[in-house]
Structure formats: C-alpha cells, structure tokens
C-alpha cells in the first residue's frame, strides 16, 4: 500500500513524485517508456537542442557581419542528433538520480486504474491512498486523408530524421510548427507552413504574432494562412486557400496540429473519472471528480506546458497530504523558441478587450536595449506592457526578440503578485541586458 502512485514520469509526474517522497511519503512512479516524458525525450529539450544547432549554423552565415570570417560551414545532421541525444541522456540520468535520491520507487509498464485506489501493471496490482494521473499528451491527428501514412512525420518521429530534407511542408502554425519551421529553414530546407486560421501562434498577443509572421516570412519561410489541408498522397499535399485548391510536393510532411491528452487505456471509464477529448477534468486543487484520484499536466488539457504541469503536480501533492494549495493560471509564462523568441505572460490585448477591462499600454522596440543590438545583428523585436487603466496593475507582458525567454520571469512575478507600474518602476534592472527593454516598456505606461 503506497501513499501515492504517479502514472507517467514526465515533468508533472516526476516532480510530483519527488515532492511527495521528500515529504516522507511512500511513492510509486510508473512509466511505460522513458522517464522525462515528452518534454525531455521528444519535446522541449530535443527541440531546443535542434534549434541551438540550426541557430549556430545560421549565425555562422552571418559571422562576417560580426567581423568573423569563416571557411565553409556545413550542417551535420547526424552530429546534431548525436548532440541532442547526449543532452537528453544527461537530463534523463539527472531525473533518474533525482527520483532515486528522493526515494521514489520507479517501475516500467503500462498502468491501468482498476479501482479508485488501485492500479494494474501487467499482472501485478498496486494499491495507494492517492493516484496522480500524469499521462501527458501525444501529437494530435486531425481527420485529414493520408495523415496516417508513414511519410507524414509528427513531433515525435521528426527527431528520427537523419538528414535535412530539401523541402518540408508543415501542417499547423502553432508553436510546435513554428519552432520546426525555424529549425528546418535555418538548416537549409525550403519550408511551407499551412495554417487553418488567419494568423499564426494563435493565443499570442496579435501585435506580437503579426510581427513574428513578418520576421519569419523575411527569413524565407512561406506561410499559407486560412489554408485547409484536404489530403496527403505520397509526397503531395492538397490544400485549399483563398477559395482555390492547390497542391504542393515536399520531401517531408510534418503534422504539428497540436497535442491530444492521453486518456485511453487508463481505465478512467471503469473508475468513473470525468474526462473528455480535451482531457481529465480537474479543480484548481488538482482533484478529479473521484476522491483519491488526481491529475496534472497535459492530461488535464489545461495549459500544455511543462512548467504548468510541474506546478499542477506539486499543488495536487500538497492538497492530498493536507497542505492547502491551488494553481493560478493567470501568471503562467509561455515561450515560443523560434528565432526570434516570443515570450509572454498574463492577458493579451485581445483578451482585455473581450473582458471589457480598461487598460493602458506601452510598446517599445527591443533596440532600446544596447545589449540587444550587440547580440542581435540586423534583428528587431519589441516589448509590450499592458496595465490596468485606473491603478496601473501589470496585466500582461508580451515580447518578441531573443533574450525575452530569460527575462519573462520578471514580468511573471509582477503579474503573479499584481504589482503596479509605480512599484515596478522602482525595480533596478541590470545593465547591459536585454531585460532593460522590459524596464523601458514599464516606464512607458502612462
């Protein structure tokens, strides 16, 4: 009899398991593949490893502008994959070490709920006072004829590529599609992106997403917006846009239309856990409708971000062992690791308009930061701050430009603690850093 069984060893699951174990609880963690989940194995980390290589390759092409002359430069995909695997391997070992050190018992296998307090793995049954579902998500498969063919890659299988294709068609202009578009474009492929909506990076502040679109187009990525993919046959993708049907041939086709929570094969129906296609329903305490069954991360379908999953898992563990806690979604930052990066936290301008909140805004170019100019030859960006009209409370911060992923946490603290412009203006930012653009934007709120 365990205090807690965690199903799924992604960031939400392993952090929750370690947290509970550090509280002195008897914890069992069950993973059917490799610890680290999507994030470590086929998500955040490998994608960033790829992007670092492609960025460096791109920068080598720009080196002369920095006064550095190079000979011929090549993109060595097998070496890129090897480095990615090395980074992932190091991190997976780190997680295994963390679990071991904190005293979590980890087993491998496919888990299934058989009662509100019991899980079946193979022919073994494990019981616990609490069960935390952290099964994550998998690439969504939209109903497009031919999408299931072997030639179509998704965000898992794309990491198995051994060479950069000459041409790639990417279905979906969300953050996953955009990051891969950047990678393949920088690595030398001709990239076409097909997005059903009239904009890319939906959910982003529109001023930021249109700037991103503009920059990525300039870098040579071709976008087809309001485009519906009709079918895939072999290497040919048929689509309709602006009322006309067209088709394109590409060496590779990548499906990056989003992610779907993993809710099947878990025994949720049998135990009566409330869930739908958008995930397991949870409260802000991490509870499901069944007492003793909790959930965190992508499986809840709330915010499909590793750091949201971590917090959700810890909130659930705290609540199950008597420490009141709840997750607040209003200040969870989000980053798109395109080149340039996009980072945001809080409300977008569109959300404020929909909610009828009166606001003031300030937008400054990244070029106000000397460091940004130094680091980013020929690049541009902006920082936008949205604050309440009456009291100046910081409601949202949206940035585009490299470096923004590292300073968005400062803005997140301001939004999380409902800091007002008056107080935020008194905070000293280090010089010279890209974060000074945030400071200028805050000072610009009148």
């Amino acid at each position, binding site marked *: 009899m365990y205090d807690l069984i965690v199903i799924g060893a992604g960031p939400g699951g392993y952090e929750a398991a370690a947290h509970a174990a550090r509280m002195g609880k008897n914890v069992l963690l069950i993973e059917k593949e490799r610890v680290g989940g999507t994030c470590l194995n086929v998500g955040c980390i490998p994608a960033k490893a790829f992007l670092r290589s492609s960025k460096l390759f791109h920068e080598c092409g720009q080196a002369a502008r920095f006064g550095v002359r190079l000979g011929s430069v090549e993109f060595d995909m097998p070496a890129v994959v090897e480095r990615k695997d090395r980074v992932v391997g190091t991190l997976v070992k780190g997680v295994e070490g963390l679990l071991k050190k904190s005293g979590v018992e980890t087993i491998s296998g496919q888990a299934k709920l058989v009662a509100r307090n019991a899980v079946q793995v193979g022919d073994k049954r494990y019981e616990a006072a609490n069960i935390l579902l952290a099964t994550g998500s998998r690439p969504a498969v939209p109903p497009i004829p031919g999408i299931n063919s072997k030639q179509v890659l998704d965000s898992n299988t794309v990491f198995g590529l051994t060479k950069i294709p000459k041409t790639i068609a990417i279905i979906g202009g969300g953050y996953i599609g955009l990051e891969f578009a950047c990678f393949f474009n920088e690595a030398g492929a001709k990239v076409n992106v097909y997005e059903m909506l009239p904009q890319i990076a939906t959910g982003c502040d529109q001023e930021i997403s249109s700037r991103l679109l503009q920059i990525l187009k300039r870098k040579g990525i071709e976008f087809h917006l309001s485009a519906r993919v009709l079918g895939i046959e072999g290497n040919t993708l048929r689509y309709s846009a602006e009322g006309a049907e067209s088709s394109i041939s590409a060496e590779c086709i990548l499906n990056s239309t989003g992610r779907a929570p993993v809710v099947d094969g878990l025994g949720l129906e049998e135990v009566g856990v409330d869930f739908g296609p958008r995930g397991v329903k949870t409260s802000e305490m991490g509870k499901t409708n069944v007492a003793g069954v909790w959930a965190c991360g992508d499986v809840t379908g709330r915010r499909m971000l590793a750091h949201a999953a971590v917090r959700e898992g810890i909130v659930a563990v705290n609540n199950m062992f008597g420490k009141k806690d709840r997750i607040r979604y209003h200040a969870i930052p989000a980053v798109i690791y395109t080149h340039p990066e996009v980072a945001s936290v809080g409300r977008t301008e569109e959300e404020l308009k929909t909610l009828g909140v009166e606001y003031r805004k300030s937008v400054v170019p990244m070029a106000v930061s000397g460091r940004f100019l130094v680091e980013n030859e020929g690049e541009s960006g902006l920082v936008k701050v949205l604050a309440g009209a*009456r*009291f100046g409370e910081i409601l949202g911060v949206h940035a585009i430009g490299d470096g923004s992923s590292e300073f968005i946490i400062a803005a997140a603290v301001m939004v999380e603690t409902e800091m007002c412009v008056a107080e935020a203006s008194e905070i000293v930012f280090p010089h010279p850093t890209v974060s000074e653009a945030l400071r200028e934007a805050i000072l610009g709120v009148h």
Partner: protein
Amino acid sequence: MATAVEIPKLGNTVEECLIAKWRKQKGERVSAGEIVAEIETDKATFELTAPLDGILLDTFFEEGTLVPVFTNLFVIGEPGESVDAFRPKSATPAQTAAPKQSAAESAPAEPERGTAITSTAPSASSGAFSPRARRFAEERGFHPAAVSGSGPAGRVLEDDLRKQYYTSARPSSAAQRRIEAGEEARGDGSGAAGLILTGDLGPKATRISGIREKIARRMRESLAGTAQYTLNASANAAGLLSVRAKVKASKGGPDININDLVTFCTVKALMEVPELNAEFIDGKIQKHAEIHIGFACDTPRGLMVPVVRDAHLLPVGELSLKMKDLSARAVAGSIAVDDLSGATFTLSNLGNFGIESFTPLLNPPQVAILGVDGIQVKPVRRDGKIEFIDSIGLSLTLDHQVIDGAPGARFLRVVREKIENVESLCTI
C-alpha cells in the same frame, strides 16, 4: 458676527439626535440655505442648513455622535472670530458623545468613540505608535485594523508591526489600491503565500443608516410580537376609475388619485367596523374614536409612514391634499417627527408597481394594515356570460391574537362595498 446653530427639537418625544454626516467641513465657506449637516432621529433623517453666509468656523461633534437637542452643533461666522462662547460646556452629551477639541488639533487625537464605524487605520498622528513603527507603516502603506503593542502602555513598536506585516495576509499592490478605493477582502488570499489578489476583493459592506436600523428593528419586532396573517380579496374598480376620470376631466380641484380614494373608502369602513381601528397593548385592546391613517411612503431615506390625523373628519379632497403634502415633505426630508407617529391604522399601496397581492407587515401595536394592490382585468361570470372587469386587489394583514378570520373578512367585505360604491361616497 459668529452665529451658532443648535440641534432643534424635532418632535415632542425627541431628546437626542445622531450626527449622521457632515456635508460641509470645518473651514469651508457656506451660503445661507446650504445643507451643513445631516442628523437622524430614530424616525427620520433631517438636514440642518446654514442660516447665513459665512465660514463654517467649527463643528463640535464627530459623525456618529448622539447629541441632545438644543445643543450647539456648529458655528458660522467670519475668519478670526472666536467660537469659544458657543462651545458646548461639558462633554456630557448623551452616551458616546465626544466633543472635538479644536485647539488640540496637532496633539494626539483622541481614540474615536463615536457609534459610527470609521476607518481604523492608524494615522500618522496616532500616539499609540512609536515613531519607527509609524515610519514602517507609512513606508509600506500597512494599516492593519488591529495590532497589539508590546511597548509600555501598549505602545505599538516597529517589531510588533513587522511581525504582523510578514505573517498576516497582505494585499498585492493592485489589491491595496482597490482596498483604498473602497473594496474589501473576502476570505483568505488566493495568491502566493496567501497574498490577497484583486480577485479576492469585493464591495465593502456598508453600515445601514440609523433610520434603516430603526426600520429593521420594527420589522423584526412586528413579526416576533404578533400573530400575523393576511387575507386577500378584490373589488370591482369601475367606480374608482370613473371617479378618477372625472377628477382628470375637471380642472382646478385637488388631483384625487386611486390611492386617495381607497384610503377614503377604508376610513369609511373603519367608521363602520371600529374593532380594527385599535391597538393591542399589554393584553388590552384600545379602540380609538379618532381615525389617524398612516400611509407607507417610499423615500430616498427609506420607508416612512406619515400620518393623516382625524382622517374621519376630512372630505376626500382634503384627505388627498393632506396626503400629498405629507408625502412631499417625507420625500424632501423636511417632515416633522410628530407627523410620523400616532397612526391608528395603516395603508400600504404597491399598486403602482403592478403587485397583485402581498403581505403587509403590521405596525404594532396596531392590529391591522391594509395593502392595496394594482388594478387588473379579471373575468367574471354574469348571467351565464363571461365579462371582463377592472378589479383592484386588497391584502389585509391582521393580528390573530385579537382579530379572528371572520371579523377580518367582514371588514374587508365592507371595504369592498365602499370601493364599489365610491361614486356615491364622494362628490367631485
């Protein structure tokens, strides 16, 4: 020359008044006729106006203080004039009165003792805080409702404040600003480490006025001290509408409305059934020869019940004029307290709002109250045919301690007869 204004005696039974609100502050210029203060008796709110142009030189009492009648309340004059001669001599006003020491403005203010709840934030001049504690509070905008001091004589030291600051739930900057703008926290803070966020705030509860408190108490007492029940009936309103039409057609006379007519009919019915024109006090029924009609009146200050004295002596036109005059004064806040007491029977009319029936609450020790409902079209069967008539609803609440169902119903039948024959009762 400086002139003092005292609290007037607002009625025979009024001994003291509550200072409800200062509309002008000390030092402000006022013109003759401008409202300076609002004062409350247990029945109503009144406004005290400036008798002449000048500067409001001093206000002797804080809001929320009970002050006896005929006590000087404020002084109007020219700058530099002394007010000492007018200052109420002793600090003996009833109950909690705390005269303000104007000469001691800069000295530590006295702790507030008035009945009104005001801000409890310690101000910079609060003597109970050590200078360092005061600075700590000011720098952080931290003004807890209560803090216990560990210094000599309960003096609040910086350490006391610091402990409270770092352990108690604190509002975020945005929440703090909204609290200062009049909101208050509901329950625990939902932010990191219990931080109070704007989502945890809501409108501040406001203290009800003295008059509202009085209404509340009377309503509770009414329900607790009687055995109320309500009878509902309706009367053919054809006569009422016909008289009303005549009134409208004839220019010059009093503008007698449906309510006036129903009141008039009720007075006539009470003359026939005097059992209901009575009060039940200490086990005794006190019937009244005179009929003093109270009528519920919706005013900006809340419900008031002006009283038409000797209504049985008044022709319908005079009754109508009297009621209009009283209700106008009740709405304006200028009605005398004596016009708000002494009723032997009460009417309450919600007909204008289209109410079809309701439960008026008794005004003890009266034993009955008649609610007047709206006029509605109602089908009736006459000679085997369905006809539609205009019908007015009547809701009579009685005290079953002394009035049983049958006599109550009989009275209601008489009221109906009077209403249906109103054309012959009054001449327009």
